[in-house]
């Protein structure tokens, strides 16, 4: 094959790669563009500072849902981080532990389960014993979705940390747990943080597992033992309502959610780099 044909072939391949990239990015761009155009009009001051108005009345805002999302998502992240990171440490640092095959299986199965099933689990675990819906039960449902993501991310990044670091720590006469806690985990913190952010982004967008756990609440509350609203819940309820004004606010909620998740991702990436 002569050189000219090689160049030509290279050009064609490059073109195909760009085309493929475009085919992936274009729908994403249109989604973001559409959400932005539809939602930006709804984001006024009232949207961020007022509780919802009764149907048809107009005005009102998303304050309870915004606060609720923050509270539920952060509790979920805290719960999931503890269990997810612990499981990841066990899988990566103690590869011969007898629990590990079981843990791998559970983590894989959990990652594949429909999100609404996690709502069901949280309903049985938390809502039933408490006797009523609550933000906490919603957080448990979301945590169940987040745990396998965090576990995998932690396991993956810990396995990349050179074994020499562990050995160097042990050779200083440090116990194994101290080596993991103070030497290995800090070296892996960027990757773990990215895992936490991915899990947060995944959980923060879920509405289905919250339908019969966090349930929703038109009134502002900071108490996670009460029913709570979240942005995806509100988005769902407003989107299927017959009211024009609620549709508008649903778009606003969609835009806010998308923006928040993108900012979280950006911050995680920046933290990882430093």
């Amino acid at each position, binding site marked *: 094959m002569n050189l000219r044909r090689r160049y030509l072939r290279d050009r064609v391949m490059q073109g195909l790669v760009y085309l493929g990239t475009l085919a992936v990015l274009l729908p994403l761009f249109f989604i973001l563009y559409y959400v932005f155009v539809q939602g930006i009009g709804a984001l006024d001051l009232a949207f961020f500072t007022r509780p919802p108005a009764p149907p048809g009345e107009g005005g009102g805002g998303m304050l309870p849902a915004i606060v609720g999302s923050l509270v539920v998502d952060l509790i979920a992240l805290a719960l999931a981080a503890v269990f997810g990171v612990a499981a990841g440490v066990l899988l990566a640092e103690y590869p011969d532990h007898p629990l590990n095959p079981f843990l791998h299986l559970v983590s894989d199965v959990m990652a594949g389960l429909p999100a609404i099933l996690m709502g069901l689990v949280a309903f049985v675990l938390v809502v039933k014993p408490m006797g009523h819906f609550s933000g906490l039960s919603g957080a448990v449902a979301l945590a169940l979705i987040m745990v396998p993501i965090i576990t995998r991310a932690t396991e993956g990044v810990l396995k990349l940390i050179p074994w*020499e*670091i562990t050995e160097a*720590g*042990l*050779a*200083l*006469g440090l*116990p*194994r747990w101290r080596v993991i806690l103070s*030497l290995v985990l800090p070296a892996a913190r960027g990757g773990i943080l990215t895992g936490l952010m991915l899990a947060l982004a995944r959980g923060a967008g879920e509405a289905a597992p919250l339908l019969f756990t966090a349930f929703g609440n038109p009134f502002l509350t900071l108490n996670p033992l009460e029913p709570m609203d979240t942005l995806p819940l509100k988005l769902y309820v407003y989107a299927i309502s017959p009211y024009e004004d609620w549709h508008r606010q649903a778009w606003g909620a969609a835009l806010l959610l998308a923006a928040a998740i993108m900012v979280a991702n950006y911050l995680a990436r920046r933290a990882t780099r430093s």
Partner: protein
Amino acid sequence: MEGRYRMETQRLSVYYGKHHGVRGVSLPVHDRKITALIGPSGCGKTTFLRALNRMHDLNPIVRVEGRVLLDGEDVYAPEVDPVVVRRRVGMVFQRPTPFPTMSIFENVVAGLRLVGVRDRKRLMEAAERALRMAALWDEVKDRLHQPAVGLSGGQQQRLSIARALAVEPEVLLMDEPTSALDPISTQAIEDLLATLKDEVTIVIVTHNMQQAARVSDYTAFFLDGELVEFDRTEKIFTNPKDPRTEAYITGRFG
């Protein structure tokens, strides 16, 4: 006989699965002397070294038999905590291993701080002492709080030595500490060994026979997992008893 030496192995064997990596080695380690372990690749010298402070413990396929005495007591006895053994018998590895998230200062005092020493003054004194012993103090004293990964390879290796010295071990095991370094850094570390042996007993694995001849007081020659010959270094290099030792040091194999 027991307690005559700082350390001593008795019929020490190490198995990697079915592979018999170290075969019944009995070797004395003299107090505050440098003992060099030489031999061709795969002869078991590193495996032997790592058995001295129980670094094999974490690898489930490795089995250690025989005894390793530290001041006359078997470090593999059931009641002995390997963490305590490693505190008394430190180790420096082939490649420098600065802890990547820590500054130079934090690296040096890691072994103290992570077991609960909080006293800032004491940590600072320990850091200076260890860095001086490792001949690194003058190069880093003005940037102690900068990341350790910014140091050159040779400096990183001396930092690893300083870090090992900061916990004041009685014995320091060194696994080819200069094999990843340039000649000037190697020279710095060899000079350092000579001053260190006043305070700490050193066992060093080296690929480099000239290095063993230059720095050590005693030399052990390993071949196929067995200890072929152990004697004073000048004896090994001038008048070896075993023909295999002579063949090796004259460069006929390995």
